[in-house]
């Protein structure tokens, strides 16, 4: 198949489907207890230089505890999927944890504005960036989940997004239509926060799934954090709720309020005051350092972070906000 046009963006991961198959051949199919702490999970499955894909959508159903632990353990030179990354991106920029990034949506926190520190980091020249779009990154995972090396899409063409991507324009062998071929993404590790999981890693998610169905399948290793551990009997009682099956998963960590300060569908709303505080404090390097020490580096785990930011009382308020109880809105 001839390449009509191609981007100059680097493809940071190997899209080769046979190499991926060779890896997946070795992946355990055993139904074994995978429950561990977030600290253990990051020690085992996130290494310097790994390519990381985070689940959820920026500040919605995001594995915050894993990101904080990555900073505490001082991981460096990660590759990062910047597909709809917002507060998660902000955390990883604070730790300068990655040095290459596939940009779908980065730097901003949607309606909340841009993160001053994320901008600074991305303007510093320390990070290699390839451009894509959110859907392109979703499609790249879809190709990975399907065990193929690329997937065709109809976006990108004629734009600088194509030019700075690793995409290649090809012609359909049936219709002669032009498509952009997007390389499969097989992340070294995906971290995904879910509502419920059993000890083997069978997961249930409520609300939108974004790209997590494919991310969990395409990634070589998967760390699950969950609001609640549930029994396998409950999973087997109605398998129609299972979104991620156990054989994709390497670690299961129970982290109640694990998406805090982000939103968790049907559980708790985002802590907008805290997210605002993050963005504000980033404009003052000294204050930002103290803020990170307090909220991440000096914390043993996610519970301590929550304790320092209002504890159960705050969580209750955010639960009420999620349910839109009268008076809980501001």
């Amino acid at each position: 198949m001839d390449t009509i046009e191609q981007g100059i963006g680097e493809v940071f991961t190997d899209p080769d489907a046979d190499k991926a198959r060779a890896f997946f051949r070795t992946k355990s199919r055993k139904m074994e207890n995978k429950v561990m702490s977030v600290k253990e999970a990051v020690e085992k499955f996130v290494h310097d230089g790994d390519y990381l894909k985070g689940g959820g959508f920026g500040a919605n159903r995001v594995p915050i505890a894993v990101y904080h632990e990555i900073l505490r353990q001082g991981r460096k030179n990660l590759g990062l999927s910047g597909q709809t990354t917002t507060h998660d991106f902000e955390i990883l920029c604070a730790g300068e944890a990655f040095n290459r990034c596939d940009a779908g949506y980065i730097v901003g926190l949607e309606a909340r504005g841009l993160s001053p520190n994320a901008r600074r980091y991305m303007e510093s020249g320390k990070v290699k960036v390839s451009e894509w779009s959110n859907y392109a990154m979703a499609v790249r995972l879809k190709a990975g989940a399907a065990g193929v090396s690329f997937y065709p899409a109809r976006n990108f063409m004629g734009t600088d997004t194509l030019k700075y991507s690793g995409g290649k324009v090809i012609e359909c062998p049936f219709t002669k239509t032009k498509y952009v071929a997007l390389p499969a993404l097989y992340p070294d590790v995906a971290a995904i926060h879910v509502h419920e999981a059993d000890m083997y890693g069978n997961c249930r998610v409520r609300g939108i799934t974004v790209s997590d169905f494919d991310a969990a399948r395409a990634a070589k290793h998967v760390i699950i954090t969950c609001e609640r551990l549930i029994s396998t009997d409950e999973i087997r009682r109605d398998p129609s709720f299972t979104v991620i099956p156990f054989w994709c998963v390497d670690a299961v960590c129970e982290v109640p309020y694990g998406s805090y300060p982000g939103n968790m569908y049907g559980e708790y709303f985002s802590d907008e005051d805290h997210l605002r505080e993050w963005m504000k404090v980033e404009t003052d390097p000294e204050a930002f350092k103290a803020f990170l020490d307090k909220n991440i580096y000096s914390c043993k785990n996610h519970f301590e972070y929550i304790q320092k930011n209002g504890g159960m009382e705050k969580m209750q308020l955010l639960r009420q906000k999620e349910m839109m109880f009268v008076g809980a809105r501001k």
Partner: protein
Amino acid sequence: MPDYNTMELMICTAARELEDGATVGVGTGAPCAAAMLAQKLQSPNLLILFEAGGVAPLIPEMPISVGDSRTTYKAIMASGMCEVMETACRGMLDYTFLGGAQIDMYGNLNSTRIGADHQKPKVRFPGSGGANDFASFCWRMMVMTPQDSKRFVEKVSYCTSPGWLTGGDSRAKSGLPLGAGPYKIITNMAVMDFEPESKRMRLIALNPGYSEKDVQDNCGFELLKAKKIVENEPPKAEELHILRDVIDPYRYVIGR
């Protein structure tokens, strides 16, 4: 002085474009407010979709994120990004609203960077997000933005999301889905569309209190002008009431 602000004017103008039964892909902020307003007025069956997976919610209050819980409130389906974008690529999404730091005479948008060095840009913006996707797939792409010659430039310094590319039949030849493209540009001063042959931006309507000269003076390239330029209706009392008291009581969007 009119009893409405610029943001309210743009949202009301945009909402009137969304007819009942249509589908629209929106982000947070003004586009979402426009879709909600249309849904509460002339278009109760307007189907609103969010790129993160929310399909046809009855949005109770302004979402902060295109993936937050409000985007699936009383929705038809909580799906994922591929579902929404594939629906758009299949030709089922009629409208979308996009924005950016720059827009050019063919409706191309820049939301990625300012400065020539890609790895060390002068200013880094979020990038495409879902914008390149919606701009490629949705039949009619619209933009709501203040009229400003720094924003309306002859050629975007970086094309994140496709408009009519370099005009004429360039978009049709590019490989992007046929027949989709920029439709209307809504500003505080005017409404523009695109001349069908050249695909250049064309002034078609003025907001109350603005002249053709005002619009041209605040545009970094020469605007084409429609044979007949109409005057836009200002926001009606009912529109303003719903926008202020129901949709955005905390003035997240209209207070900007």
